[in-house]
């Protein structure tokens, strides 16, 4: 039997001695889109950062397997090279570094070889066209002076260029107006496919009006307390997180 693409197994994570994740279990296969929903403070961002290897989070228990291999001891760049990707909720600015230059370096790092200049340009402009982005965007410095929507689209552009096997999108919809939200969601739909597993982390249900996940999970107080399909998201939308909170206490 082939190994599953991505498995989170009994993951416990602490920040400065306080336990945030208290045993998370989740499996994502190729071609699947999973939505992970949860209220503020449930541990969503902790999970996203931990999966990518942010040094601030201490793993006290559990495993994260990518293609059967535990990645928890790997630094973030090694995880990226193994096929993981994180779209950040708050992408940082890298002053003086052009998007184009940065993408080329990232491609070289993750694929091991540098694409030729013409090939790279062709690929870049294709993806930008796919995401309906203006070409001049690639001449700007990474995230510097970007609007909220531009930052999120820049994350999606990187997702498109780097073609990871497992993508985690942390609050890809936060802070966007309706047009920007639609454009980001379109990008996600175009990029999702049989070769990739996707974990969409979100507070609100609204992005799910545009992206159809195969599975919906609810994270509450550091654990996944409910799993289901789209109907779960709709129920959440109707009843709010208090409904889950009530159940979790009971």
């Amino acid at each position: 039997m082939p190994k599953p693409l991505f498995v989170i197994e009994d993951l416990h994570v602490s920040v400065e001695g306080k336990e945030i994740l208290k045993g998370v279990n989740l499996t994502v296969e190729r071609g699947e889109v999973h939505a992970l929903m949860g209220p503020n403070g449930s541990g969503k961002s902790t999970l996203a950062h931990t999966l990518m290897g942010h040094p601030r989070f201490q793993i006290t228990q559990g495993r994260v397997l990518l293609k059967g291999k535990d990645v928890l001891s790997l630094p973030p760049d090694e995880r990226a090279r193994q096929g993981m990707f994180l779209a950040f909720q708050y992408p940082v600015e890298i002053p003086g570094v052009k998007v184009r230059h940065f993408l080329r370096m990232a491609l070289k790092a993750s694929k091991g070889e540098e694409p030729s200049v013409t090939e790279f340009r062709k690929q870049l402009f294709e993806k930008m066209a796919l995401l309906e982005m203006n070409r001049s965007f690639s001449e700007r410095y990474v995230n510097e002076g970007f609007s909220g929507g531009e930052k999120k689209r820049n994350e999606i552009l990187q997702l498109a260029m780097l073609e990871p096997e497992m993508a985690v999108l942390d609050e890809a919809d936060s802070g966007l107006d309706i047009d920007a939200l639609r454009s980001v969601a379109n990008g996600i739909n175009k990029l999702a496919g049989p070769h990739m597993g996707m974990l969409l982390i979100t507070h609100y249900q609204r992005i799910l009006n545009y992206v159809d996940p195969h599975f919906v999970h609810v994270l509450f107080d550091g654990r996944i307390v409910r799993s289901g399909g789209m109907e779960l998201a709709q129920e959440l939308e109707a009843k709010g997180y208090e409904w889950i909170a009530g159940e979790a206490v009971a």
Partner: protein
Amino acid sequence: MKQAAKGFSRQVVEELSSLHSEPPWLRQRRLEAWRVYEATPMPTLQDEDWRRTDISALALDELLPFAEAPSPHADSIAELPQGLCALLDKSRPESGLLIQHDSQVVHASPAEEAAKQGVIFASLEEAVGEQPELVKRYFMTRCLPPEHSKFVALHGAMWSGGTFVYVPKGVEVELPLRACQWLARPGLAVFPHTLIVLEAGSKLTFIAEQCSPEMDGQALSCGATEVYLGEGAQLRHISVQQLGRQVYNLGAQRHLLEGDSSLDSLIIGLGGELTKFFVESVLEGPGANAQMRGVVFGGDDQHFDHQTLQEHIAADCSSDLLFKVVVKDQAMSVHLGNVRVHGDARGTDAGQTVRNLILSEGAKAHPILPLEIEASDIRRCSHAATVGQVDEAQLFYLMSRGLSRRDAQKLIVDGFFEPVLEAIPLPAIQHRLRRAVDEKLGLAMP
């Protein structure tokens, strides 16, 4: 005098003057500068301007004040030493190129188009003979008199070679003029002088390079650059310092700006053992504008000390300074950045920012930015200094895209410098500087 005896003295001053067959007024200026030099105490760590920069290891008495270039006249670039040739990418035309090798100007390719418009671009020694009135009026008088500081005085007494640029009223010089100073002889002290006069409404880009190969033995580069910007004149002034590791660099550069003139200056400091460099803009006429940028990268045990001045004398002027500094290994960078606003300088807009990145344990950054304001009716006056290491959040972001820690750090440092390097009009120099930065970084990381 092919080569003077070691050390500096009044006798050397007179010999130099005779060697160049100078007119009496110029000999007199040299002697006056020597008098000021002797009357000025040698800077020590007790002087406020020199508190963080120790030049006691510089053996002044062991230095030669003058040495003829090995080949005094190079008609074509090919006749120049190899290391010097490598600097001069000729793929892009400049409108003029002047080369000083050690104490002498060895090559001056004329700025033909510009010469037709009356632009003068020549060695300063030549200009003394051909434009005595201009030189007499501007040379070390109002801009950088010997009283400026100890080493400007020494320069005034010992100068050789040098560059003279004169742009007549209203003339816009399209292509950059470039002057390259090549110091190749250990034990030598060079004193190149640059005098630039822009008449009203003229426009120029000037690139000055100070370079030398790696040498065994101390050497001194003690240059002085004087710039006069007439009303409405515009100057882009780029100074690249890539001296060899044993060279002491004690220099001064001062710009006097008349009304509505504008200066865009860029200082690039990469080489040398120890640098103490004065960079001064004096806004004398209303509406003048000075942009002063700088990039400094210190490695090993290099020491950089840039002392900048934005002096607002007239009303409604603006000045903005941005220096970006990276230090690694045991290197140290001092930035003494003065902003002085006189009582009549109403409507002043002055800004100053010095950013320091410390890459390794043992490296030091001392930014000191005094702000002296005597006027109240100002638009803005602000300064900011930061010191830090490469930001962890930026590193994590780049590493999450597959870059190694080392590559991520390199990318961040490159990005730190890029906006400044990008602005250099000659791509060849851009490439050379990027390479130099990368080389320095390469040594940094295991």
